[in-house]
């Protein structure tokens, strides 16, 4: 089991060698300038406006890969939703909001947001750097004018926005072009002090979240799939903790599972992608199916004896969840539940599996897992089906959150 250190067998694999002797060594010895320091200089020169993290955001400080500090805001947050999560895994954002309600945290979820458009870009190339940066700045500026700090739900948005932030800081001509376009839409060039992913927010609040646990999960064997665009794009900005895998792997997601008391099993292909591939999930499906089964699900089940695969991003959750059934055609009879860390935490903390965690949208079998966690999902299902009937009869839907009256932009 991987808690404070890495499994011995996996430690001897080539990947661990490379992680220690190539990636970290090279990154640490040849540290790039801290973009946040350059951003502060640009702000001092009046070149850009910065969305600052204030006391109202109740930040918590953590360390990233290079030992730099990163402040994670926990309050007064603007939800930068994920199209893949909202469209296909709705229990992902609802679980985040459910926890925020439970903890009395202030947030804003509204309609004046676009996606980052980066899934389409990585898949099809039908955009460009200026468009991506402009979309990012438009969303950042919208958050800025509301007074809330952007919290990025999607891993690809998180990675893409870090890239855009860095490129905007480094290149004046890009800033000038984006500023010109922002002027056309009545906005300004603003850049957040930090780009923050929800898994980082969950990570820094893990003890408060764990204190809400009502179901014992100590008998649950989890396996973690760290999302590529969360930890491989701009890797120096990722949270590492010496108490998690000896500081050799990203800490978010694993740390919340350990805080909840679950077991986190190591497996040899932990670093592999899920097989999503951006265009592959739509146009090269045989790759997505084969890779997710061969390199992730099979290993999680056979090597780690996992009860559940825990994710921290959008496409990974979909790819790992949806591609198991077809494996039967080749004798793979896996049925490993797949869900995001925040959904697992919400289940452990007593959130309704149907109404809040929206587990019914997940394809691979989750019923045995919920039984093992001691969750009465049958009653939840019955209540949900009755609720659907009430909605059909015209009842107004229940809400975790209703946006304040929206002013014209």
């Amino acid at each position, binding site marked *: 089991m991987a808690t404070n250190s890495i499994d011995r067998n996996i430690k001897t694999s080539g*990947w661990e060698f*490379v992680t220690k002797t190539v*990636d970290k060594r090279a990154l640490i010895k040849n540290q790039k300038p801290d973009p946040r320091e350059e951003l502060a200089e640009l702000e001092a020169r009046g070149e850009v406006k910065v969305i600052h993290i204030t006391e109202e955001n109740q930040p918590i400080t953590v360390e990233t890969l290079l030992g730099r500090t990163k402040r994670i805001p926990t309050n007064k947050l603007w939800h930068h*939703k*994920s199209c*893949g999560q909202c469209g*296909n895994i*709705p229990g992902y*954002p*609802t679980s985040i*909001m459910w926890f925020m309600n439970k903890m009395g945290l202030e947030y804003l979820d509204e*309609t004046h*947001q*676009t996606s980052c*458009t980066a*899934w*389409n*870009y*990585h898949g*099809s*190339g039908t*955009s*460009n750097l200026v*468009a991506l940066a*402009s*979309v990012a700045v*438009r969303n950042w500026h919208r958050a800025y004018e509301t007074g809330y700090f952007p919290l990025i739900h999607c891993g690809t948005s998180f990675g893409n926005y870090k890239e855009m932030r860095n*490129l905007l800081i480094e*290149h004046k001509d890009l800033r000038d*072009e984006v500023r*010109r*376009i922002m002027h056309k839409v009545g906005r300004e060039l603003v850049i957040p002090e930090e780009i923050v992913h929800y898994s980082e927010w969950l990570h820094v609040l893990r003890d408060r979240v764990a204190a809400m646990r009502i179901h014992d999960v100590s008998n649950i064997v989890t396996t973690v799939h760290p999302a*590529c*665009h969360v*930890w491989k*794009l701009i890797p120096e900005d990722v949270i590492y903790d010496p108490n998690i895998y000896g500081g050799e792997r990203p800490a978010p997601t694993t740390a919340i599972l350990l805080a909840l008391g679950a077991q986190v099993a190591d497996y040899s292909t932990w670093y*592999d*992608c899920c*097989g999503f*591939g951006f*265009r592959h999930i*739509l*146009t*090269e499906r045989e*790759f997505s*199916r084969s*890779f997710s089964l061969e390199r992730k699900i099979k290993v999680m089940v056979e090597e780690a004896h996992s009860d559940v695969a825990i994710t921290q991003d959008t496409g990974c959750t979909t790819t790992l969840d949806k*591609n198991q*059934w077809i494996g039967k055609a080749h004798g793979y009879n896996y049925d490993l539940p797949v869900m995001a860390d925040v959904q697992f935490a919400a289940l452990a903390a007593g959130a309704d599996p149907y*109404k809040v965690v929206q587990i*019914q*949208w997940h394809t691979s079998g989750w019923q045995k897992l919920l039984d093992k966690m001691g969750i009465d999902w049958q009653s939840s299902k019955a209540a949900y089906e009755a609720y659907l009937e009430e*909605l059909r009869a015209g009842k107004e*839907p229940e*809400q975790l*959150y*209703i*946006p304040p009256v929206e002013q*014209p*932009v």
Partner: protein
Amino acid sequence: MSHDNDTVTHLRLDPDDVGQQDAQSLLEAIQSDLRYEEVIHGCLNCGVCSGSCPSHRFFDYSPRIVVQTVLSGDAEAVKAMMDEYIWACAQCYTCAMRCPFHNSPGGLVMIMREVAVWRGMEAVHRLLKPYGRVLLKVLSIGNQLTPDMIQPDFFPDWGPKIPWSSTDLAIKRKAIPVYTLQVTTSAWRVSPETSYELYSIYEETGVFRLIEEIDPNLYEVVADMVEDLRDMVESSR
């Protein structure tokens, strides 16, 4: 829809250049991209990138070969690679995480894909065809995946539970307890003003013009939607 005019060449390509596929000009477009210096710093030819590449396991694809070919300056070989080869990359950036030179072969592939699309290379039409639904959504509302896209006839390999996700969708979405998510044709409610601003971004960055050049049928549909929404927003002001 008005067309853009000035193009900052190293920031973005000009949609008027669709069809310009001279090998040397393609290579120059790749190498003049603002990000090129950030993704390529040299290459040991060590193959660490290919050793961990997911696509290398399942396709005739190697990020090492992509980097070596571009660095060789062989424009014809680069052009041949842009037609099909580079589209196998899964864009996971494991290669970038591992390269001792801090190269990003995945980042290089992204620049090459962008050039291939903005020059309208033949393979692009074939490669983008199954992408029409995503493109329509991202161009019209800025969402890329929406609840009504998960249909059993499109995802038969996702198993027998998928029909549940596509039937009675409006009621099931209404049962998600977050107001912005209680919709079926977008991932969340997107205000018309937001789409209005997005259209300006696409127009100013040449994206609409690109779509007009490489997929006129899709462009026609999008243009109608854009015009309707603009009329609606402007009449409400």
